[in-house]
């Protein structure tokens, strides 16, 4: 790194750190929903990426409608879109649980196959409805551009927005899962379905709502994602494996683990990318994860339990 002034290096350091944090928030936002569905319920939802795409398409749809009919509302539509994305994806998730998942709780490998089928159907549905072309909603001006604390440092506004949104959602999930009575029911149900049923918890309802919540969060991730990339019918498939790695690496049942794991994966990937090519950075990151998981199959942060 010869030939650069220390202030230049500092600036790069700061921005590189933010690039990692930005990737972290994307990974975490996507993994949170999966951590609930996979970690808490034990369902392998291969269609998780498609629920994310549902959120992204909802955002796109709202932006188009707003642009055409309520141009004055453009600066604010995005906030509405996030909420809408949540509910659309959650509703789809609710439906999927009812039609599909609930029959398969005892057969985790089969949920994997069935949800893969679901993902194919959803992809083709997106293609039939929105076309094969990648779409990208028009963003409000306040999401564009960057914050410049010094001459050399540019922190993208959309990255900061996604980060803030991630923190908000994470906080919400924590509250819901660990502080609310509903969270207690979810945790009780996932730990002992029969017993929970016996003490009067409507386990079917809990399952359905939990699944819907996970999908809803995926939808929010999709909405947030439109600020940095485009949406196509197969967008979801690009992230599903990474997302699973985050959850598995963190230790499936641990939300804190998911956060730590998203952070370490994002920073590793982003720092490696600065020095070696993108493909090799990805190969190294994934390979390291696989090797670590081989030595510690229960994930980094799983608590030791009696088996």
């Amino acid at each position, binding site marked *: 790194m010869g030939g650069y002034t220390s202030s230049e290096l500092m600036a790069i350091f700061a921005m590189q750190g933010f690039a990692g944090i930005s990737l972290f928030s994307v990974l975490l936002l996507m993994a949170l929903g999966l951590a609930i569905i996979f970690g808490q319920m034990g369902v392998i939802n291969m269609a998780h990426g498609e629920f994310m795409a549902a959120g992204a398409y909802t955002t796109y749809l709202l932006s188009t409608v707003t642009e055409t009919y309520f141009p004055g509302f453009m600066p604010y539509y995005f906030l509405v879109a996030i909420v809408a994305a949540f509910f659309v994806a959650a509703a789809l998730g609710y439906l999927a649980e009812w039609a599909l998942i609930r029959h398969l709780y005892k057969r985790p490998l089969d949920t994997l196959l069935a949800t893969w089928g679901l993902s194919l159907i959803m992809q083709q549905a997106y293609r039939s409805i929105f076309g094969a072309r990648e779409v990208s909603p028009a963003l409000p001006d306040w999401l564009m551009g960057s914050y410049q604390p010094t001459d050399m440092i540019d922190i993208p506004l959309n990255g900061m927005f996604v980060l803030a949104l991630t923190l908000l959602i994470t906080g919400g999930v924590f509250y819901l899962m660990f502080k609310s009575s509903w969270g207690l029911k979810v945790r009780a149900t996932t730990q002992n379905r029969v017993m929970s049923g016996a003490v009067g918890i409507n386990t079917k309802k809990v399952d359905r709502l939990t699944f819907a919540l996970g999908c809803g969060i995926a939808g929010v991730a999709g909405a947030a994602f439109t600020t940095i990339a485009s949406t196509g019918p197969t967008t979801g498939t690009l992230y599903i494996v990474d997302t699973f790695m985050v959850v598995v690496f963190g230790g499936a049942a641990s939300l804190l683990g998911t956060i730590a794991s998203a952070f370490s994966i994002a920073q590793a990937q982003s720092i490696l990318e600065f020095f070696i090519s993108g493909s090799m950075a990805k190969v190294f990151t994934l390979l390291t994860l696989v090797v670590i998981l081989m030595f510690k199959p229960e994930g980094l942060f799983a*608590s*030791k*339990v*009696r*088996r």
Partner: protein
Amino acid sequence: MMSANTDFTLAVEELTVSFDGFKAVDNLNFYLDKNELHVVIGPNGAGKTTVLDLICGKTKSTSGSIKFMNKELTKLSEHEIVRAGVGRKFQTPSIYENLTVFENLEVSYPRGRGVFGSLMFKRDAEVENKILEIAKEIMLDHMLETEAALLSHGQKQWLEIGMLLIQDPQLLMLDEPVAGMSVKEREQTAELLNKISAGRSVLVIEHDMEFVAQIAHKVTVLHQGKILASGDMDTVQKDPKVIEVYLGH
């Protein structure tokens, strides 16, 4: 820590296991003689099943030693422990429901245990005779071709015992062998246990005190991971600590 060799079939010394700080078994010392049928009783959560898990290698101990015929078991993996001569029956009958009684016993037959051994395994007269012999012992010789899923609950328990017997273990560990059995089946099981304890050591976990009285040579009461009392049935039943634990709950 090295413990001295003994004449006991099984010598458990200073055995401790903790799960995230919770000591399920705490500094346990425990010995088992040849030809002894030993029953472990105790309230729920006393650590009975955990002790069996530790001996057969399902759970790894935090510290302490388990010696089986002077062979240290704590470092061995499960299949090595089995091959050393320890058999274990699980609480709920653990048999292969999709296979017939004959096949269940055949799969447990101690030959062709390696990958290639199993590929080349031949069902010869020796195997068939042994299976027949065991089937008679567990009272299932008339049902050899029945699929195991169709057996009654008691018969499943027997089948699992038979799957252990066919390996001729020196130590047989049974976790609640009469749970869910009819009165008649209990009697038959008691008879079976008395018969098979000849020539080997048997360690039984049981709740049913009547059954315990029928079979036990020696009884140990476990409470919160520790031994509360040990001795013959009468002594144990009269022990005030035992009465306190059982009635205090």
